């Protein structure tokens, strides 16, 4: 950011917005927006309660279980779709529908199948994240230079070696991009699942705070979930940077 010809670190933009928030809060313009200082105070209070950790652990288990299933279905499925024309034609339509469908609308219907508990939340996480992982993996496999595959075959790679030593590695940049998007969507899936059906975990806290107008705690929770999603995204970003040196020159 450049103001009056001086370079100012980007963090100042954040500071300005926090000041605006604080001002609106102090002026009591909207009861929805308490002063930012109150939100920070609420955050520390939350971090000191056992109920919060209980909620976090319930949510985190749902998230990580869902993501593990999502990844172990999404990546192989994407590779298969990228390689086998028949499978691509059979499933391509559905993957494309689901990746852009308003999934939140479908979630309540899951109740019928999976009930009100943790299972539904896990299924929601999978439903939110698996499609983008599949699609990006497929795109990565489709992008592979055909002569790399010929090279593998001509130097005697068997099927397994071709998939592990050539295809998977060559598609890795797209797979990681899909993984990053999938993880962020998965975070959304946990919250949506816990809010709409199974009122447990962080969703339950959200429900409680917004119903009783505890807006400082509500925002504290929003910020912490945002930070969590941001950290996951940065972690994958870190992996992407490690392969960027060759990914950008393919």
């Amino acid at each position, binding site marked *: 950011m450049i103001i009056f010809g001086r370079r100012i670190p980007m963090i100042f933009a954040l500071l300005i917005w926090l000041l605006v928030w604080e001002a609106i809060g102090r002026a009591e313009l909207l009861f929805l927006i308490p002063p930012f200082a109150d939100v920070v105070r609420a955050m520390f209070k939350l971090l000191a309660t056992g109920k919060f950790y209980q909620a976090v652990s319930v949510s985190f288990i749902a998230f990580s279980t869902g993501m593990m299933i999502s990844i172990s279905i999404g990546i192989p499925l994407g590779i298969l779709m990228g390689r086998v024309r028949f499978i691509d034609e059979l499933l391509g339509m559905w993957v494309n529908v689901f990746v852009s469908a308003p999934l939140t609308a479908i979630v309540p219907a899951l109740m019928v199948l999976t009930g009100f508990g943790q299972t539904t939340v896990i299924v929601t996480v999978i439903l939110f994240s698996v499609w983008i992982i599949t699609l990006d993996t497929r795109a990565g496999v489709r992008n592979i230079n055909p*002569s790399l595959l*010929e*090279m593998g075959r*001509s*130097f005697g790679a068997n099927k397994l070696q071709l998939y592990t030593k050539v295809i998977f590695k060559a598609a890795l940049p797209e797979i990681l991009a899909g993984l990053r998007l999938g993880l962020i969507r998965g975070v959304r899936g946990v919250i949506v699942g816990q809010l709409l059906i199974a009122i447990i975990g962080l969703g339950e806290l959200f429900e409680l705070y917004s119903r009783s107008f505890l807006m400082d705690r509500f925002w504290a929770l929003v910020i912490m979930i945002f930070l969590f999603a941001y950290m996951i995204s940065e972690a994958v970003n870190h992996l992407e940077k490690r392969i960027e*040196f*060759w*990914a950008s*020159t393919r």
Partner: protein
Amino acid sequence: MQANTIQNRPIIEVKELSKTYPGRVEALRNVNLSIPRGQLTTLLGPSGCGKTTLLKIIAGLLNKTEGNVFINGQPVNGPGPERAFVFQDFALLPWCTVLRNVAFGLELRGVPGKQRNEIAMKYIDEVGLTGFEKAYPYELSGGMRQRVGLARALAVDAEILLMDEPFASVDEQTRRKFQEDLLNLLKIEKKTVVFVTHSIEEAVYVSDQVALLGPRPGRIMRVINTRLDHAENVEDIRRDQRYLNLVEDLWQILRQYLI
């Protein structure tokens, strides 16, 4: 006596080979060709004459429609360890160092790490890339990348090198140097080479035998023995009157096929 017959027999025999791509594009029609052991044979022709198709069928990377290819008397049903391929676009693994790329064929065969690195280092040295073994392909020029591709093909110790327009993507000076280095290298490494190119000068310069292909559908028009002595100093070949005459003769034949 028995050994002698095997030695004299062509290492590669292409018999009545035809290839039609899906959509009825006829790439090759009734191709017959013998490739003598220990020599460099060029497949020369204009683009679209099916020379790369022929090379990839010999490599076992493409299926034939009719006819057969025999290597040491055995019909080709896929890639095999007696053949190694050098790709026009190098086909290096961009996430691997030069060393790992050169050793890749050995890695696929399950040669233990230490041993395959030793072999790879020998060939990195032979193609003149000593000191670059830890570099990644993106750090190398086109010519150097193709040297990696060549070292990889040499490292698996195949009898036959199949080279698909190996110098097409490098600049003129680099190409000339590379051609000279290839001839010098082949004096040490006794290989049979099948070399695809569309450059008449290149074909005459590197070859013992040139197979001229005509376009649409591809077929062999003529096979010419260059009778150039590649054991001589490689830098003298370009001044050899026989080299100059052959370049001109081949051009006179090939120009008929151009519109």
